[in-house]
């Protein structure tokens, strides 16, 4: 019999709510308004302007939001089959001929299976390829096989590789335009299907390489990325009712990290700094921020990381798993109150 998996401390404190039939879309959007296929729609807009924008996929076009692109630009879409390694190489070959290539698959397969091919064929040669990872972090209940808890950590280690983790539909649309403009290799994780919309209310605008303060607050500073910025904003709203004043600094570009903005925000005295990411706490945003603070001699009033714990997570329903591993809004609020 195999040994029992390691369990997170958190798991013991917050029991899951039991079986849920909540769909991925409902789960990701938390009851927020949504917009469909942000990557795919933005990509079509770009492709209408630029003839050299092409897309490839590894048998996952319909679940990586490329449906509209495939329909509108059939001659600029190339199916590579279930072959992430060859897809990364083919994308490199196409970029060598002057194309800007969007290559889509699940984040787990891009990062774990195609790593060497992305490393050598694409990034080492600084080719204009955008690797798009769908279902990033804990956004599938399949368990570790399909989950990319460590994609950011893995790709962060590759030199000159830009890493983007947008938060909602608005962020994804703007980021798609920005990375298409940027000439070079990028890894972007995406929300897909009917993606939540939250940043429209905050006057936010995506800029590649920039962190953005989207909510001010004096007690806690969330430094967050991707899906967890949505959660941080919702948690901040909830905690406000309990007189806990939270700021949210959204960091959609993990690499290169906007160290200046992060360090400046953390210098402000008295705030506990809490990083939040839909990714393992090993080697992602939290570690990057901690490293930046130490290197700049900044010691905040407490430092905590929220993320997927360093263990092989369970399979199950997303609602349960996000509660179990401390990523849900409710779990974030509980943790913050315990830490303050």
């Amino acid at each position, binding site marked *: 019999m195999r040994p029992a998996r390691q369990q997170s401390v958190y798991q013991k404190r917050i029991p899951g709510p039991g079986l849920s039939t909540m769909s991925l879309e409902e789960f990701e959007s938390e009851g927020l308004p949504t917009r469909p296929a942000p990557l795919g729609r933005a990509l079509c807009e770009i492709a209408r302007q630029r003839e050299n924008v*092409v897309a*490839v996929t590894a048998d996952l076009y319909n679940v990586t939001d490329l449906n509209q692109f495939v329909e509108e630009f059939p*001659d*600029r879409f*190339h199916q*590579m*089959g279930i*072959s992430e*390694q*060859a*897809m*990364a*190489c*083919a*994308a*490199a*070959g*196409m*970029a*060598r*001929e*002057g*194309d800007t*290539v969007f290559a889509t698959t699940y984040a787990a397969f891009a990062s774990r299976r195609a790593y*060497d*091919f992305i490393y*050598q*064929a694409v990034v*080492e*040669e600084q080719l204009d390829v955008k690797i798009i990872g769908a279902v990033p972090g804990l956004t599938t209940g399949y368990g570790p096989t399909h989950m990319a808890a460590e994609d950011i950590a893995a790709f962060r280690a590759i030199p000159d590789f830009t890493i983007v983790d947008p938060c909602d539909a608005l962020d994804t649309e703007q980021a798609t335009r920005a990375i298409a403009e940027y000439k070079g290799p990028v890894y972007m994780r995406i929300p897909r299907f009917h993606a939540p919309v939250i940043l429209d209310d905050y006057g936010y605008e995506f800029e590649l390489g920039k962190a953005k303060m989207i909510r001010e607050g004096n007690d806690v500073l969330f430094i967050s990325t991707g899906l967890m910025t949505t959660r941080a904003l919702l948690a901040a709203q909830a905690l406000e009712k309990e007189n806990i004043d939270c700021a949210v600094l959204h960091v959609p570009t993990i690499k290169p990290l906007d160290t200046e903005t992060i360090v400046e925000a953390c210098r402000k005295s008295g705030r506990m700094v809490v990083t939040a990411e839909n990714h393992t706490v090993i080697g992602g945003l939290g570690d990057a921020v901690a490293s930046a603070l130490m290197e700049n001699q900044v010691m905040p009033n407490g430092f905590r990381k929220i993320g997927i714990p360093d263990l092989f997570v369970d399979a199950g329903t997303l609602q349960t798993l996000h509660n179990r591993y401390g990523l849900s809004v409710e779990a974030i609020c509980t943790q913050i109150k315990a830490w303050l």
Partner: protein
Amino acid sequence: MSEQKQHELSNVSLKERARRIRINGLRILETPGKGYIGQTLAMADWLAVVYFYALNYKVNDLEWDGRDRFFLSPGHLGCAQYGALIEAGVLPEDEIGTYGLDDSRFPISAQPAYTPGIEISGGSLGHGLGIAVGSAISMRRQKKDSFVYCVVSDGEMNEGSTWEAAMIAGTQKLSNIIGILDNNNMQNDGPSREVSDPEPMFEKWEAFGWSVQRIDGNDLDALCEAFDNARNSTVDKPRMIICDTQMGKGVSFIEHREKQTHMTAWTPDDFAKAYEELGYRSE
């Protein structure tokens, strides 16, 4: 006469080109005194045919968009390609002694960042054919009528990614790819047939939708004919030329040596004997 075909005006025979490529290769490998000696000698004949018969390129404009692309997927065999590029006049002969040294333009594994005429970083095996697939797709869409030549090795047939790329090329009928499979039946841990048997190669590539030829890769006439066939074929399929090559070809004392490892180490005497046999005397 177009500039790119100037090298064809030369009266130098392909046999002589191959001999010089062997000498260049050995001189390059003399710096460390060891390396892919058997492979370099094996590849010299088809390299001569590629650079002096088949490939369309301009010595003085390596980025010329109308060129045929040439990808060496087993990038660790860069030593052989450097030898050919020197003979073609792309690389200078006087840098031969820098192979593998600091700041050299001849790193042990070929990389485009270092060396003019090298198009891709191979070396980590199983990359080249996939890159060729992408280049071929984009070149076809952009209506460029050049070919992508891609060298793969028999050992590389162990890599699953090679077959992923082979399958895509077959499905998409990428008739602008000409594969060169250097089959010297030797990989790091021993004969390919014993490590992970790539045979039957002809049938495998054919089954993946390729038009396949299999020839003696050290027979210059057969090579020229095979490249002519590959270029002129109207078959709507990617083309593969399986070149059965002989490790150590052209230097008798290692041609039939039973055990030829990847990192053959030679004594200065070995090099001297080989140069003598190839009619080259170092100063």
